[in-house]
């Protein structure tokens, strides 16, 4: 049962949140000129790392704001929380591929 630090409301139980999966997937522009494969990569292909995962969550039952989380998919430890649109903090940026 995760305790998720909402950047706005403070730490709240996991049941108040929704998980939106991998973060930092920008929607491609000029989609008409994209190949089917590139469009499929945007739509479906995911990092799904075993280790630090940058993902986005929404405080569904609280402030309804989306934010980013860096979380280990092995230990479930939460390494960082940062606002939508911000890049991952330096402390986790390099670790994304790291397997724990």
């Amino acid at each position: 049962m995760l305790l998720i630090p909402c950047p706005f409301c403070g730490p709240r139980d996991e049941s108040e949140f929704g998980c939106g999966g991998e973060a930092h997937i920008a929607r491609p522009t000029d989609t008409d000129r994209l190949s089917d494969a590139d469009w499929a990569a945007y739509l479906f292909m995911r990092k799904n790392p075993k280790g630090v995962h940058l993902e986005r969550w929404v405080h569904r039952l609280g402030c309804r704001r989306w934010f980013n989380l860096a979380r280990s998919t092995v230990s479930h430890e939460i390494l960082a929380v940062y606002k939508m649109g911000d890049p991952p903090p330096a402390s986790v940026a390099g670790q994304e591929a790291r397997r724990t």
Partner: protein
Amino acid sequence: MPAKTRYSIFSLVRNAFSYHENWEEAWRSPEPRPEYDVIIVGGGGHGLATAYYLAKEHGITNVAVLEKGWIGGGNTGRNTTVVRSNYLWDESAHLYEHALKLWEGLSQELNFNVMFSQRGLLNLAHSPHEMRGLARRVYALNLNGIDSELLNLEQVRAMCPILNFSPKARYPIYGASLQRRGGVARHDAVAWGYARGADARGVDIIQNCEVTGFQISNGKVHGVETTRGTIRANKVGVVAAGHSSVLADLAGFRLPIQSHPLQAAVSEPVKPILDTVVMSGAVHVYVSQSDKGELVLGAGIDSYNSYSQRGSPKVVEDMFGALVELFPIFSRLKVLRTWGGIVDVCPDASPIIGRTPVEGLYFNCGWGTGGFKATPSSGWVFAHTIANDRPHPLNEAFGLERFSSGHLIDEHGAAAVAH
């Protein structure tokens, strides 16, 4: 390869006289050789079945199955063992039905009792809307020649009288679909039976051997790096379920897969009370009673990615709530154990079986919450795909290409109850 003693009541009695001291190994534990014709990565049911059918159907016996832990220790060893073939779309129905046919003779074929028990499987409907969805599926199955029936309330009552039939229930039961040939099998026995069968045909089963990289040049695979050294092969089949993305990453491409925890639980064992498999989508739970007497029940997936083989307690608590709602008499039973597996979820709830961007490298994954039932046919078609470097008609539609073409095989309906 010494021929294996046939298992039977006679061999049991015979061995009793020697205090069971003369049984041979079900499978050997050989050292890996430097090179094989085919390497299978992942010693779950699907990987072992692939190796078995490579040897049996295609005569390819110089095969190694590499397993990072112990065989059958992944989802094969932690699933709720529901077997059925009542899927909606033709492609899936054919694939799962092929499996069901293989299940029906599997114990005899493998000479290993996998306890495939065709005790019938009810999918409950709790609204006219759900009835309509079930009807659509049942009618389609019938036209595909697959057994499936639509039951009204009274028929459901006759099959499983201990359900909550109150019309005042929050989600009252309206009816159900029934697949009589569906049921459960002993999960561990499936891995062991295939392992024994593959081993008898010459396949090396190598445990505690984790694949940590691929040898790839000019877009072709030549072998794998493992915790027990480099092993060469020009064909490598990956059947790693929850770890598929990790292996794809090692091979340099991505998959449309997310790894999520899926949880299950058993109650303490009790005398027979539930003779069929019951699944409900609206009141989310599915349950059967094992031959040892425990209720075996399964939950839905956790919403977030995880490789931890455990999930949130909220998910299992909701599952127990659903159980008591559906079966009020189960309230005083006690939960013995809960656990989780890592399921490889595909966007269309259908598997991926086929070639990859790397020549000679094949993936079989994306079975998500429901691949146990497909173990025999999954291995069967994957063996065919590897042996011939092209899919069998049964798995043609299940290639990676569908994500670009848009030809998804959306089985969210049939897989609505995670199993």
